[in-house]
Structure formats: structure tokens, C-alpha cells
């Protein structure tokens, strides 16, 4: 009995020793010389592995940076300039200046501004819904509101507003990783410059149908009237396929286009609430009853204006 215990102990000890020795020798012999900077760079990166930089993960980005030896075209959207400065410090390079971006939902149709024509009762996924029908309101360009973008957001920055059935971006949480942009089957979400003091102007519509058709389906659609294009002093706005688009590189956030837009499709975000128009569009939660009145008034005005422009358009045609 005693011998077998001793025998067992010795056998295990020897086995352990031999294995550790073998492992040690193998580890020494097959050592892979890796640039220590890869680990250092990977340490500094956020480790979210979101793929927003275009590489498979944070370590892949670190490897690419160290291998290439420069930071050209490599930037971490999550960490932003602060992290890239640190990486630049490790690599002994100056980080490329990148302006902060944010995801912008370019549709304001949703439940409130469209007229429901059909009821969708299929798979609750935007990609498959996109193949099957236009939308409950009839617009085949706008947001479907099924929240596939919400499910791919790793930073909890997107939420469907239950009132409007539209996704809303949490500005503090969005890191511009592009996950939602890639997922949205209708390309409703776009990455735009955050702008100075988070203030930015954008066209909240991507409907390319002719004005009358677009308007029929949605109260706040861009009808491609071209007023904003004429108004813009910086040439930032272009009209293509009955749709206005603001180039965020040229836009100086003067908000002249917001004032002239007959349908309220152009949104200005985070500006101080000087004009009631701006307030109505973005600050829905402040004073609901007052803003509803405001909206109704405005919409009748807009309708009149709209009809006038339509008539003008048809005449000119």
C-alpha cells in the first residue's frame, strides 16, 4: 500500500516535471519574435473590437499600425483623437487629425408623420422587411423602424423611440463605429461630422421620388423644391433625384436652409432655441402641447406654400 502511494506521487511528479520541461523547451525553441509595440498599441486601444476602423478587431488594427509604421488611414473611431495621440506616442508619430463623427438618422417619417396604409406582420428584421414591402406609410426609402440598427449597436447608443417608431442616436454614447450604417438596408443612417459644439444641419429624408409622391406618403419628406439650394450661401447643398443633400464639409451651419424648407425636412440639431421652428423639430420632449399647436399651424402654412411651389413647378415645366 505504501509503495503504491509513493509510486503514484513519484509518477505524477515526474510527469509534471517532464511536461513542464518539454513545454519550456518548446516555448524557447518556437519563440515567435513579435514587435513589443503591437502589445503596447493594443493596450492603448479601447478593446471594444467593434471593427469601426475597418480591421477585424483592436489587435488587428494594432498589428496593421506597427507593421505599416504609419498612421495613414488608420484611426480608432471609438477612442478618437485622444487614443490615436497615445498610439502616435508609442510609434513616435503624429496622429492624423480626424474630426469626430456621429451617426445621423436621415428619416423623420415614422409613426407621426406618415399615414399608415398597410400593417406589417412579418419577420421583425429590417433586411427581410426591406425585401418584402415599402413601409407601413408607403415610403420605400425611409426607416422601417424595426430596429435592426439598434440590435447591432454595441455601445447602446441607438434606441427606437416608441412614439415615433424611429431610431434615435444617443450623442454621448455614439462612437461612429459605422455598425448601424453598414446594417441599415436602406442606408437611412449616415455618418456625419459632429460639428462645432455638436451643432449640425442635415436633410432628414432620403426619398428620391418626385415631390408630390413623396409628400403624399410623408408630411416631412424632402420634395426637392430646390429652395435650400438657392438659399445656401456656401454651395453646400445639392439637389439630385428630387432630393436635397447637405455636404457636411461645406456646411457652415448658418441654418438659412432650415428656415426656407417648406416641409421641415432639414433639421438643425443642438442649436440654442432661438427660432421656434428649430425648437419644434428637435426638442420634442420640452413642451408637447405647445409644439403640437405650433406644428399644426406650421403645417397648414407649409401646405399652402407647397401648393404654390407645385403650381410654379408645373408652370415652369
Amino acid at each position, binding site marked *: 500500500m505504501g509503495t*503504491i502511494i509513493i*509510486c*503514484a506521487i513519484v*509518477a*505524477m511528479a515526474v*510527469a*509534471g516535471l517532464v*511536461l*513542464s520541461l*518539454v*513545454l519550456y523547451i*518548446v*516555448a524557447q525553441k*518556437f*519563440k*515567435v519574435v513579435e514587435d513589443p509595440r503591437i502589445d503596447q498599441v493594443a493596450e492603448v486601444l479601447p478593446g471594444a473590437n467593434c471593427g469601426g476602423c475597418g480591421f477585424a478587431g483592436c489587435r488587428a488594427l494594432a498589428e496593421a499600425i506597427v507593421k505599416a509604421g504609419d498612421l495613414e488611414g488608420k484611426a480608432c473611431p471609438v477612442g478618437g483623437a485622444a487614443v490615436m495621440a497615445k498610439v502616435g506616442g508609442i510609434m513616435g508619430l503624429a496622429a492624423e487629425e480626424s474630426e469626430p463623427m456621429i451617426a445621423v438618422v436621415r428619416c423623420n417619417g415614422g409613426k407621426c408623420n406618415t399615414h399608415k396604409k398597410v400593417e406589417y406582420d412579418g*419577420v*421583425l*428584421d429590417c433586411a*427581410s422587411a426591406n425585401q418584402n414591402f415599402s413601409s407601413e406609410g408607403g415610403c420605400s426609402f425611409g426607416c422601417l423602424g424595426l430596429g435592426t440598427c439598434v440590435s447591432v449597436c454595441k455601445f447602446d447608443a441607438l434606441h427606437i423611440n416608441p412614439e415615433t417608431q424611429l431610431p434615435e442616436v444617443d450623442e454621448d454614447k455614439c462612437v461612429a463605429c459605422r455598425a448601424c450604417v453598414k446594417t441599415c438596408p436602406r442606408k437611412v443612417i449616415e455618418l456625419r461630422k459632429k460639428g462645432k459644439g455638436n451643432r449640425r444641419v442635415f436633410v432628414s429624408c432620403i426619398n428620391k421620388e418626385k415631390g408630390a409622391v413623396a409628400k403624399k406618403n410623408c408630411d416631412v419628406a424632402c420634395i426637392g423644391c430646390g429652395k435650400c439650394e438657392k438659399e445656401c450661401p456656401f454651395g453646400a447643398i445639392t439637389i439630385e433625384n428630387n432630393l436635397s443633400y447637405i455636404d457636411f464639409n461645406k456646411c457652415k451651419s448658418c441654418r438659412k436652409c432650415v428656415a426656407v424648407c417648406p416641409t421641415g425636412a432639414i433639421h438643425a440639431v443642438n442649436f440654442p432655441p432661438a427660432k421656434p421652428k428649430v425648437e419644434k423639430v428637435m426638442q420634442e420632449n420640452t413642451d408637447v402641447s405647445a409644439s403640437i399647436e405650433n406644428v399644426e399651424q406650421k403645417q397648414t402654412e407649409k401646405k399652402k406654400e407647397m401648393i404654390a411651389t407645385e403650381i410654379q413647378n408645373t408652370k415652369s415645366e
Partner: protein
Amino acid sequence: MEYLKLFVFAVFVSNVVLSQFLGICPFLGVSTKVSTASGMGMAVVFVMVIATLVTFLIQHCILDPLGLGFLQTIMFILVIAALVQMVEIILKKISPSLYQALGVFLPLITTNCAVLGVAILVIQKDFNLLQGLVYSISIALGFTLALVLFAGIREHLELVGVPKGVKGTPIALISAGILAMAFMGFAGLVKI
């Protein structure tokens, strides 16, 4: 013919995951995508064959002559863990591309009970070395089959409207149970 029988037995009749319920952890953990599931499966094939070979030799050359059969479990765990580590180190040097493909899964296999289970089963069933190797390859392929099948099912589950109460893990467990029941249909097909 004997080896074909062994193969069918190990892959379908006594599938390691769905009939013997070994290696459930990676079965649920790495089965959300078909691509990662097949990667994991390949890694398991790789490790299982080497582990069976080494543990077979240890059993017959060290433990049996010394009369230390009761050390089997602990010795096998020790050897397999060390082996996987070694394979990982060597792979990293010799074939970085294979390491890239299997790298993530190798540490996961270190403590996979399916690997240990097969090593012990080979001894219990009194296979010779060749039989043991065929058996371990078949078991590993069976594991891969189960994993890939299940991953395919889970990929489809992502797209359908699963009731809120059973979303995620519950529905995965339910479908795993149904899949296991389907494999019961193979019972008695081959006797060993």
C-alpha cells in the same frame, strides 16, 4: 468494413455531443456562426487525434506496467492540457495562418471534456492504436457535424420571430434537445 462501422457508430449512433452529452460547453458557446463552428470543429479534430495517440501510449507504456491505472483521469488531464499548449506554441511558429484560424479555439479545447472523454473511452473499449485513432477522428467529426448543424439552426433562429420569453439561450437549449432527439433515430443502426 470494421473501420467504416466504427466511423458510422462514432459520428451518428453515439454522437459525442448529442448522444453522450460530452463537450456541451463549446456546443453552446461557439455555435452562433457556421464559420466559427467549423473552425472549432477542425481544431477539435486536430487536438483529439493527437491527444488520443499520446494518452494511448501513456496508458499502455507507463500506467499499465506500473499498475497505476487509478491515475488515469488526472494524468490524462495533465497531459492533454500540456499538449494543447504545446501545439499552440508550435503552430504559432510553424504555420501562422493555421494558428490564425484555430488560435482562438485551442485554449478552449484544453479543458474540453469531450477530448478527455474520448481518450478514456478508447482505453475502456480496449481498442488497439489504429482503432483508437479512427475512433477519435470519427468522434471529432461527429462533434464538428453537431456543432455545424446547430450553428446553422441558430443562424436561422436569428431571423424568425422567437417569443420574447424563450429568446436567446432558452430557444438554443430547446433546439439542442430536438436535435438530440433527431439523432436518437440512428440508435441501433450499428452495433459495436
